[in-house]
């Protein structure tokens, strides 16, 4: 990463030292210029921006459009320097109020898709030179899906992992029976198969963009579905719904991952799916157990478990459960939605006063 910054020295063959800047805040534009060779410090630039736009007492996020049309942030000296040095012919600045910043807008492929594609085709070097910049707050992100095992699967297949935990989105897809054509030593043969029949709008499956209607389902969590009935496959998927890994043969074979390309690593997962499954295996073990202390004989049945649990949970001063009104059911259902994240308790459980909550 640093290597790319080092390269971003002022270009020698530029005769004009001034860089034209077009800065946009809301609907307002301001034009000014900075010195290409000595752009100065980021802090000065930041103050300049606030001054020019007359928004002195505001926290803002400054972004710029790079040569590929990507919106990238300017928040330190390095990327400021980079922004100025690569501006051609002008530096386009976008200002957003800090509280309104939509991080999803940052990153590659955000502003001008078409242009970028053209650039990429024309000059592959550009790709390599593109700076790698931290552009968001990763602790707020969790994977919702990934393509895995690209290196061990045939190119025509795709193994998709849907992470349901932590998301309120439904998995949101339907499967059906169908026939698929297989190549056998005796020629083409029609065999029954399982296909995705529908994606629920707004569901996890649809939002990933990795599954499509009429994709053939080949495996569920590593187990082949051939010979299994629609109901069996349904039950298998539901049983694995907390961490569903579906291997499909996409109906659209044009978007296949090309083996050996850099993107294969982008899932960030080790290629060994079984290893990673084991990791998540423990997730599913997280049955919720509520045990009430029954040691004190003074506690007659009127000391309800719900009350006790309520008290104990409050001792943990967990904000997620503050609102609990003593109904065990409500506590449970709040636990159910996302046990790991809404309840920031350490794994293995907290013991206090005989009552145990194991997560």
């Amino acid at each position, binding site marked *: 990463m640093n290597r790319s910054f080092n390269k971003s020295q002022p270009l020698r063959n530029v005769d004009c030292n001034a860089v034209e800047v077009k800065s946009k805040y809301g609907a307002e534009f301001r034009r000014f210029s900075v010195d290409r060779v000595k752009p100065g410090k980021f802090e000065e630039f930041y103050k300049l921006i606030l001054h020019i736009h007359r928004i002195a007492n505001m926290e803002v996020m400054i972004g710029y459009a790079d040569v590929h049309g990507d919106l990238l942030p300017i928040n330190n000296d390095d990327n400021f320097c980079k922004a100025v040095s690569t501006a051609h012919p002008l530096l386009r600045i976008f200002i957003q109020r800090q509280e309104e910043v939509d991080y999803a807008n940052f990153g590659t492929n955000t502003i001008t898709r078409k242009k970028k594609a053209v650039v990429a085709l024309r000059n592959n070097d550009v790709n390599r030179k593109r700076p790698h910049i931290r552009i968001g707050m990763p602790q707020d992100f969790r994977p919702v899906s990934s393509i895995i095992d690209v290196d061990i699967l045939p190119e025509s297949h795709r193994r998709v992992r849907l992470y349901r935990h932590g998301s309120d989105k439904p998995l949101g897809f339907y499967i059906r029976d169908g026939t698929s054509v297989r190549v056998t030593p005796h020629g083409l043969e029609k065999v029954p198969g399982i296909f995705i029949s529908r994606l629920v709008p707004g569901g996890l499956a649809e939002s990933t963009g990795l599954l499509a209607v009429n994709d053939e389902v080949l495996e569920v969590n590593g187990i082949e579905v051939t010979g299994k009935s629609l109901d069996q496959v349904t039950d298998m998927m539901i049983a694995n719904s907390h961490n569903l890994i579906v291997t499909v043969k996409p109906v659209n074979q044009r978007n296949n991952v090309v083996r050996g390309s850099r993107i294969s690593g982008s899932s960030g997962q080790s290629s060994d799916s079984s290893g990673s499954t084991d990791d998540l295996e423990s997730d599913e073990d997280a*049955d*919720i157990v509520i*045990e009430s202390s029954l*040691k004190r004989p003074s506690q007659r049945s009127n000391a309800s478990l719900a009350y006790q649990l309520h008290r104990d949970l409050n001792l943990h001063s967990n904000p997620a459960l503050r609102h609990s009104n003593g109904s065990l059911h409500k506590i449970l259902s709040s636990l159910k939605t996302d046990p790991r994240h809404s309840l920031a308790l350490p794994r293995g459980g907290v013991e206090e006063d005989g009552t145990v909550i194991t997560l």
Partner: protein
Amino acid sequence: MKRFRRHGQESQRDRLKQELFQFNKTVEHGFPHQPSALGYSPSLQLLAIGTRSGAIKLYGAPGVEFMGLHDENAAVTQVHFMPHQVELVTLLDDNSLHMWTLRGHKGLSELLEIGRFTLTGPPGAPPSVTRVTAVLAHTSGELLLLGTEGGHVFIVEVPGFRELEERNISLDQVAASVPDDYIGRRNLEHVEALQENPINPNQVVIGYGRGLMVIWDLEKRCAIQHIPATQQLESVWWTEDGSYILSSHSDGSYCRWMVGGEDVNDEEEKSDIPYGHFPCKAISKIIQLPTEEGPPFLLFSGGMPRASYGDRHCITVIHCKTHVALDFTSRIIDFFVIRDGLQHTGDPSALVVLVEEELVVIDLQTDCWPVIQTPYLVPLHSSAITCSHHVSAIPLKLWERVIAAGELQNTHYSKKPWPITGGQNLAPDPPQRDLLLTGHEDGTVHFWDASGVCLYPLYKLSTAGVFHTDADPNDNMNQGAEGEWPPFRKVGCFDPYSDDPRLGIQKIHLCKYSGYLTVAGTAGQILVLELNDEAAEQTVEAKVVDLLQGQEGFRWKGHTRLDVREEPVLFPPGFQPFALVQCQPPAVVTALTLHSEWKLVAFGTSHGFGLYDYQQKNTVLIKCTLNPSDQLAMEGPLSRVKSIKKSLRQSFRRIRRSRVSLRKHHVNNTAKLQEANARLEAELAEMELAPVQRKIEARSSDDSFTGLVRTLYFADTFLSDSSHNTPSLWAGTNGGCVFAYMLRLPPVEHRADEPVTAQPAKEIQLMHRAPVVGIVVLDGHGAPLPEPLEVAHDLARSPDMQGSHQLLVISEEQFKVFTLPKVSAKMKLKLTAVDGSRVRRVGVAWFCSSRTEDYGESGLVVLTNQGDVHVVSLPHVKMQVQYPCIRREDVSGIASCVFTKHGQGFYLISPSEFERFSLSTCYLVEPRCLVEAPLHSGSSSQRRSQPDGASSTHRTRQDSEDAEVLQEIQKSLEGDQTSFLENNVKSAVA
């Protein structure tokens, strides 16, 4: 080295598995579904029933049964035993004939198919020429006469099925000699009946559909006599002295014709329409049998006045002045009469009637002709079975009391022994007494002796008496008022009409040590009953339990709860109710368990569960499990599930109504009908075109029926700390939740006055949220805790309370073991995630080794929704064996399955039949019987049976098949051969 050793251990385990587990379907109990043909061999004393699915079943003395299945999936239309032989011939719907025999093998008889045959006509002839309509097995035992639709009679030599073309009786031969004045001579139609002259085997009577009967001499090959009946012929009977022929006709008449001499224009001697004046239905079969002294018995089926009683299924029996029309509740398939005497030529002793839903045997020698109780073929479905419960190893005392109570109920049965006594039952006496309890739709519970091959009815409990029902007690059975004509008498016990579906029994739990029984039904009623040898009049007080516990905003949309009789009710000896709980809302009870030592009953519905103290008659605990957002649980039964069926039915009704109205008003309004038809078609098309698709969604707490209680379990275990064990109650719900309550029981001396209390102790929410179908606590040795009172009766080892207990939670998707008292996951076995099948039924069973007598282990027996049975080891929850058992499409079969404590199981293969299977190598109940060839023709049959084995060279194809079948049967038998021999030795020593 290590790897080698482990391999050795595995193979050792494999060997042990073979010694412990083995899958067999052993015997079918109950009444065959859709019987279509009946046959009887007086010499063998065997009864044969053919069914529409192509099965053939033979029954003799109790315990003697054989079953065969035709390869063709065609209905059996006729069954005929070869006279005085062990062979029988079946005719199938596809016009094929099959020869079966009972062959001895290792001291047991087996039913084997030894030949098949289809008539081939001359080339180019229409298929009707060879379509068999009548079969006569000639007394010579060597000939079959086959009458066909074309009117020909073909003669075939058996057992080889060789056509004797030169002896065939063609229609032309017969038609040529028919008197010119016979009205129907141009078309005699098909051969309806073939009968042999009882005193001259060379004479047969051929009855044609048009009415003409011809007596034919087989030797001279010519017609001797023509009987010119003019009504459509239904059946023919040649009286025993050979002097008369009886014919029955489609207009409800029967005629008697003198047989004799050359007088061609023989007039009918007597003709009668027994239920005459108005048009009558056909008499389908007629029999006349002589008695030693006095007038003969005349029996015929049908013949009822068409308009008023056309829907009755009747057999009329006339003897002397007695005339009774036996009125059956289902269609008559066939009937025959058993006669006294060694040669079976004496007085009629019993009438055997096969109707569609049961077999009824009537004692003709006792006054009033009472029914003889059948020891097998009992209609399990006299009212539809709604649940079943199996109890193994019943103590003798309880057994005898149940039998005594049952005998008091059976006083209306004949005292005569069962008249069908063929074959010898060689099966060893069952090692223990087993009870199978079936709950029925009409609120009855039937107790069956399930120890052996015959599922014998012991006792019947009715719970309807506790409640007010719409049924009028004087509704049936009391009919037949003086002077009624025809003189009906209701017989048979098949009565599928329930007075009130709310009475249906849904759960049963019997404690075999204390004799306490609890049953629960469709309208949320839970009855606790006690066995009492005396009749008692008592009031049953109802306790209403509100399971919603003040949860607001719900309105129950289902049925109301049952009205309880407030006045004292007289209960006959047997199980008498003394406590009644009624759930509110009155939803069907989905879980029930009884602890007779603690005198507690736990019950659950889709709304919650409760604990009832039946000694103090009050509720200890009520817990609402209903999810506040679950509205479906308030709908009541079947409101949405049946909607497609309902809409279809409605469309049919609409059509029918429109048709009826068309006819009624004579309106030429075909448009309406077409419209209705189109609507139906559209609906059907919609059903077919809508793609079958399944939603993939994780279970959530908001799903419907998550609060439905699936299982309840009592355990004495370590709930709070590892040093003190306490009584506890466990409940598992449809939403994957397990609740545990610690129970505090007062000391025995204060049991009657101090309250029992329950405190919530644990709650486990399984992350995968699959329904919890079973909960078991394992003791320190990893063995399941014994049943209540089992230890007190010295029938079980007391549980190990030293080591730490474990909790096994069985959900539909996986088996999971937790530690106790602190609940943390220990190990699990995933089922659904791996192969997509789900647990439907689960039971704990004890398996003994077939080789090492003192080795045994307990395991979980599991039936999945795919119809496979698995055995899962305890306590390590490892899959042991897996066998396919039930077709996965057979949902009702899978739902009906019940396991025994010794690795056997029962499931319904039809509404009226249980299939019994065994997973154990040691506990097998299967028929073992021997049928020997009849004595008086012993020489001929031996001559026949021996070449059968030897002549395999020239009947190659069939025999090789036979050999295969034989081998297979032999193989399956060999497994238990040893135990069989042992048992024999034991009985010999004893």
